[in-house]
């Protein structure tokens, strides 16, 4: 398993390098001057030129790229052009918020999506199945920001249970942290419920048609045992694929959730870095982002091995 992980990590290096190069080029092609974005539109051309010089933006592109790669090779993400704060510090302070939101959304997605999918599959073409399918479709169809606003109106304004804006709370303040996390996690989790429910329904339906399930039924096994022991395990591979695939999307979706709930996080920071043309901060954040996508893919592969021994043997 260690060799497998090491191999996957090594193969991630070219991917990261490609992502970094594409990002480095694209952000500099996009029109917009970091110096104007930082100083404001009232700044004089002299001040803009002075700042460009100080930020090293007057150097040739290849020199900037070389410096950038050298910095990354040393494990240094540099400092934000706008604030001067080390990018690592910015990542450290916001990453936990994005991670906890993503993990909580995944947990909600699995906790509700899997049973709903199983229920729909085992009650195919009944009212339960129709309700589950329509419900999951609604979960997927509502834009994240729309669901978020509806949840805020219902649970924050009408019922007053949760805050509208989820300002940052220290990690040690667990209760308050969970209180602030609840609504954004539900908002994002609803999308995941939709994905997981649909994926698990079709996957379970497929397994239910297998010969060994028919045999188990013929042997008179308890239907619950058939579902839990024989069907679920075999149906999990496609579900894990969906979860892994959409985990990346979920991190991307977190931008909207973070903006509507005004929650600190990587997504919100990326938007800010982009609007400010803060090249170094954006590059640093995208490295973290790309790393997580690679990590999620690797964890998905490992999960295959854990679920299905045949994958390990291969």
């Amino acid at each position, binding site marked *: 398993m260690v060799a497998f992980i090491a191999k996957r990590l090594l193969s991630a290096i070219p991917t990261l390098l490609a992502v970094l190069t594409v990002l480095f080029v694209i952000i500099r092609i*996009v*029109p*917009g*001057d970091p110096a*104007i*974005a*930082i*100083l*404001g*539109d*009232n*700044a*004089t*051309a*002299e*001040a*803009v*030129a*002075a700042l460009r010089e*100080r930020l090293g933006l007057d150097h040739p592109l290849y020199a900037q790229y070389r410096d950038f790669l050298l910095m990354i090779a040393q494990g240094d993400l540099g400092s934000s052009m*706008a*604030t*001067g*704060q080390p990018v690592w510090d*910015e990542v450290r*302070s*916001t990453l936990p918020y994005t991670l906890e939101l993503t993990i909580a959304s995944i947990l909600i997605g699995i906790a509700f999506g899997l049973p709903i999918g199983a229920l729909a599959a085992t009650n195919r073409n009944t009212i339960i199945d129709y309700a589950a399918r329509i419900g999951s479709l609604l979960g997927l169809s509502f834009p994240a*920001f729309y669901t978020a*606003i509806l949840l*805020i*109106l219902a649970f*924050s*304004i009408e019922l*007053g249970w949760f*805050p*509208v*804006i989820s*300002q*940052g709370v220290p990690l040690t*303040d*667990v*209760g*308050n942290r*969970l*209180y602030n996390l609840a609504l954004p996690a539900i908002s994002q989790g609803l999308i995941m419920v939709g994905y997981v429910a649909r994926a698990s329904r079709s996957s379970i339906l497929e397994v239910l048609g297998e010969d060994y399930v028919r045999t188990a039924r013929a042997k008179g096994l308890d239907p619950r045992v058939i579902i839990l022991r024989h069907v679920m395990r075999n149906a999990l591979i496609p579900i894990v694929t969906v979860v892994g695939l959409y985990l990346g999307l979920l991190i991307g979706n977190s931008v909207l959730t973070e*903006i*509507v*709930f*005004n929650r*600190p996080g990587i997504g*919100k*920071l990326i*938007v*800010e870095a982009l*609007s*400010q*043309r803060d090249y170094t901060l954006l590059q640093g954040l995208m490295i973290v982002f790309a790393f997580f996508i690679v990590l999620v893919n690797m964890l998905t592969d490992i999960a295959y091995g854990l679920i299905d021994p045949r994958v390990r043997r291969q």
Partner: protein
Amino acid sequence: MRANRASIAIATIVAGILLLTAAHAQDRVVRLADGSQGAGQLDPHLSTKSQDVILFGMIFNGLVRFKPGSINPADIEPDLAASWESSPDGRVWTFHLRRGTQFHHGHGEMTADDVVYSLKRAADPKRSAVSSDYREFKTVEALDPYTVRITLEKPVPSLLGLVANYQGGYVISRKAAEKLGENFKLSPVGTGPFAFAEYKTDQYVRLVANKDYFRGRPAIDAIVMGYIPSGASRELAFKKGEIDAFLGRREGRWVSRITLTPRLEVDVFGPGELRTLHFNMTVKPLDDIRVRQAIAHAINRDELRALFGKDVTSTAISPVPNDYLGQTNDVPTYPRDLAKAKELLAQAGYPNGLKLSAIISNNEALLRPMQVIQEQLRRVGITLDLDVVEHAAFHAQIRKDLSPLVLYGAARFPVADAYLTQFYHSASIVGTPTAVTNFSHCKVADAEIDAARSETDPVRQQQLWAAAQRKIMEELCAIPLFEQLQVWGRRDTVHYGFLLKGAMSLGPLFTEASTIAE
């Protein structure tokens, strides 16, 4: 066991809520919400961005200040300087500082040394975004710890404006700036009623009351400026009671709707941002004045004002915003007249109309009026192709002279010279080393603008500014369209302590006199 765990979790949540509530009850905190993503650089000489400028007015002082709630230069009053005098020719100004004014966080007494350091810094293009405003400063000296003398190369239109609580006029702690270096922009140290306490990236800036403030301890304990980009979230957070004041939409319909919210008051105040359509007069067909006149006659400014609502806009006639010192409406005007517009186009050799293009920001405040203009021009046969780009890209591209038509909105220091110099003087033409925002390449009023700048007779100075405005409108370098005012919503328990008619900080200003009721 499970039940116990659940009870502990619920108890923790409840305790957290109670603690937060208790903390709120103890402190008189005003929670504001701006619409930006976060603070930029909290260095008053470096940042001209509205989300930073709004805080500077509370952290720093100038030698003089606009009377709180006013943006009228005639209302300028003493601030860090208790008094001042100038030489008869207006070239030498001596300021006598208040004694005992303390910088925040124990950075010591503010003296002439700090003032000299701050003004020299404001004049340095490497450390200031507004250095060109100070180009006429010859020397700034400390005659003694409480006296500062400024000597000018030649008189400037409003020296007091350059040392007021606005942009380069803010006085910072020399000790703190030298000690903190680059980090000063994240730990600013001033003398204002509120001291910087904390910045959480993307979340909020927290200011705390300066107990040693020379005008007395503020009645408010802290100000938290939160950054909530979503307008809907700001409104909902207000309704839930999580914020006390917030940036509103600068639209009459929004104002009418939001005023129905219980316990909410809306402040509509200056300075208005003058929306102007600038013509690049060096490119065809805009180099022909008849084409510019045709466009001016085709535009319906009432329709444009109606787009945002008359409550939050005002008419614009002159190329200088209303109420600026030296502004005049005695300028040539171009009322809507479609027949005349078509006739002018025919005279210019375009009887069948013509095609124009413009780069425009995706920012609604610029995009929407530009789309209305596009439709209005279509009525006289002018096809306007719009290239809609992201806001930062828009600013970069218009400064590279890439857009023949530029719709721009801005508020500047309320003296005619500021607007005339930055938008209509040849030294400010975009693409030049001294460029600011002269998108039209206008240079017809250079002589009047220069002469007014060094004119010591206020009456003659105003005549020169008026002449400059007339020339700009005769030549039609640009068409002033309308002014859009600032809009903020506030809980009725929050009181500024003065009537908010205007704030150079482009947002609500809190002073030692501001209060929040329980």
